[in-house]
């Protein structure tokens, strides 16, 4: 709506219909053109263009020095990116799947997130760690994790997760321009799910701001990334049963847009939080804390959470049972509204 019009202030004349993965590609292309210090590091990102084709064609245009096929070494990718970042470059480090970020966890936890604080701002690491996440594409074991709370719990790094092609490009550009490290999660199940108009030039979507994507009065449904379409589908079904849902797309998982959450929940008095990661220790708990801190006396029903179960993400034969479905979300909407 209006919000979107404002966001694309620069060069909004021309648009093209892009999928999310094309929008991600376009964001990197835009920034490689715009800023010589931007470089991409990752496994199979060069000639192959990435396993999801997110970097397709970029090495051809920008060369092997700026779109770098690295050894198969996540800690090496992130660790060398730290050295590049403190010495004048803006690395975009691709982790091929979020389930493979764990070898780099030490580097992210003990260095990427801390360097700025421990040097009192003398050194900083403006880098982006991009990673496809989530289940739903019948991928092999360990390819389908949603590990955002490992990083939202980690002070010193921002965590961003777009749900649409427009936001994917705008948020990725914002992440690359951010002076601090950003973990950028891409819902792989949404990579090719929809096309929408995406401006051809450089624009950004503000990190730390969510968006009300559907206006409603009875209950606030909060989601992001691959769960946004699930939440919207459930909201639509609820509408048919006479329950009016307000749907929020958080977009940034740290820092949370507390004002957006508070304003909506104070209006509806009810909240359903949907996420794909496991419930225990999941981000839903932090969102509940935000509601508790800002809107406790407005609540008309206990807050509902619809999350992945507290089990490792299963082999794909059972992944549809693991992930929140519109049916489960609808059940929680009903529970909240009819409490």
């Amino acid at each position, binding site marked *: 709506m209006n919000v979107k019009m404002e966001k694309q202030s620069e060069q909004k004349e021309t648009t093209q219909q892009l999928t999310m993965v094309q929008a991600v590609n376009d964001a990197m292309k835009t920034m490689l053109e715009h800023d010589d210090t931007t470089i991409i590091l990752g496994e199979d990102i060069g000639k192959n263009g990435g396993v999801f084709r997110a970097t397709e064609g970029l090495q051809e245009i920008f060369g092997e020095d700026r779109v770098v096929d690295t*050894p198969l*070494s996540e800690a*090496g990718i992130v660790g060398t990116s730290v*050295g590049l970042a403190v*010495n004048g470059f803006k690395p975009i480090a691709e982790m091929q799947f979020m389930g493979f970020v764990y070898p780099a966890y030490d580097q992210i936890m003990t260095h990427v997130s801390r360097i700025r604080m421990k*040097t009192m*701002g003398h050194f*900083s690491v403006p880098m982006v760690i991009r990673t496809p996440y989530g289940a739903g594409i019948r991928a092999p074991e360990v390819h389908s994790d949603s590990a955002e709370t490992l990083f939202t719990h980690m002070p010193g790094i921002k965590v961003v997760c777009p749900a649409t092609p427009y936001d994917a490009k705008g948020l990725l550009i914002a992440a690359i321009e951010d002076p601090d490290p950003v973990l950028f999660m891409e819902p792989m199940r949404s990579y090719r799910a929809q096309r929408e108009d995406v401006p051809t030039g450089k624009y950004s979507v503000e990190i730390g701001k969510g968006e009300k994507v559907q206006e409603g009065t009875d209950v606030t449904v909060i989601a992001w990334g691959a769960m946004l379409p699930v939440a919207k589908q459930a909201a639509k079904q609820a509408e048919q049963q006479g329950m009016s849902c307000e749907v929020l797309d958080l977009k940034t998982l740290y820092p949370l847009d507390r004002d957006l959450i508070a304003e909506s929940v104070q209006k509806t008095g009810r909240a359903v939080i949907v996420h794909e990661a496991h419930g225990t220790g999941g981000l839903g708990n932090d969102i509940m804390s935000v509601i508790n801190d800002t809107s406790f006396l407005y609540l008309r029903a206990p807050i509902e959470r619809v999350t992945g179960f507290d089990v490792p993400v299963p082999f794909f034969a059972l992944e549809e049972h693991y992930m929140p479905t519109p049916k489960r979300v609808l059940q929680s909407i009903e529970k909240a509204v009819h409490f």
Partner: protein
Amino acid sequence: MEEQFPIKKIIDDQGNLIDSSYEKEINEELVKKLYYHMSRIRLFDRKAISLQRQGRIGTYPPFEGQEASQVGSVLALDSEDWVFPTYRDHGATLTFGADMTRTFLYWNGRAEGCVPPEGKNIFPAAVPIATQIPHAVGAAWAEKRKGTKNVAIAYFGDGATSEGDFHEGLNFASVFKTPTILFNQNNRYAISVPVEKQMNSKTIAQKGLAYDIPSVRIDGNDVFSVYFETKKAVERARQGEGPTLIEAVTWRTGAHTTADDPTKYRPEGQGEDVINPIERLENYMKNNDFWDEKWIAKIETELTEEVESALEAMEKYPPANPEDLFDHVFTNTPSQLVEQKEAYLELIGRE
């Protein structure tokens, strides 16, 4: 492998020159510079241990015995180069230009100790093991991309070579031919585990073979050998010839840290035969007419004053500011962190 990687020496324990090819390069100026810095960091190190015992700083990891390795290697660099130290390498960073007051502050739990003087590319000491190696490779890679001749040195111990980050760092350095000096101080113990139990390999230098990285094994207590071999590695790096792995075999004279008791794990008498690197240099100086009592006395006085005044400045430093907890995590502090800060400062009666 020990035959393939013999321990190179230029002087022996008694200070005799055994490799005459360096005879001309070893002049009074160099000898005095090396001696000065080794003496300086030893004074700092011993002072720090004593301060910890008096409860005036926190836990401290002494580097005594490794002065030749640290001084010899870091003096082979130029001021534009990068240094990636571990927590036991403050001898190297002090020699490279780190501030002594701030180094004391670091060991007194202060982040100010990680802030290098402007223009000095000194990274904060890595406390996790081996994680600084990929950083040094990345920083060196950046210099190469910028087209400079600058290099980066990564310091690490024998235990670090068991970590994945060591191997990942070496592999990246090799694949991208980065101007990186991979400087290993094999002080023979990783806390309590001796190097023979750390690895089945006879040397650390041989690990470079797997990555096709030129590697050399040197006597880490022979400051000349450290200095000249590091110089060679630096020169190779500046010429675009990529990384070098240096294994400096040395000896940690003391405990892992002031919280550690090596008598629990070291056989009695082990290491007693090691001639410490300063004594060895003194032997050389005496053998070669570089021993200048007056100069020695003068620098001893100067250095003692320097250490004492750095200590005094550390103890007079303004108290740690609780605002610093919050202010440096992000460039633009998120609102929830600002709220946490304001609420806490109000509670403790600030602002």
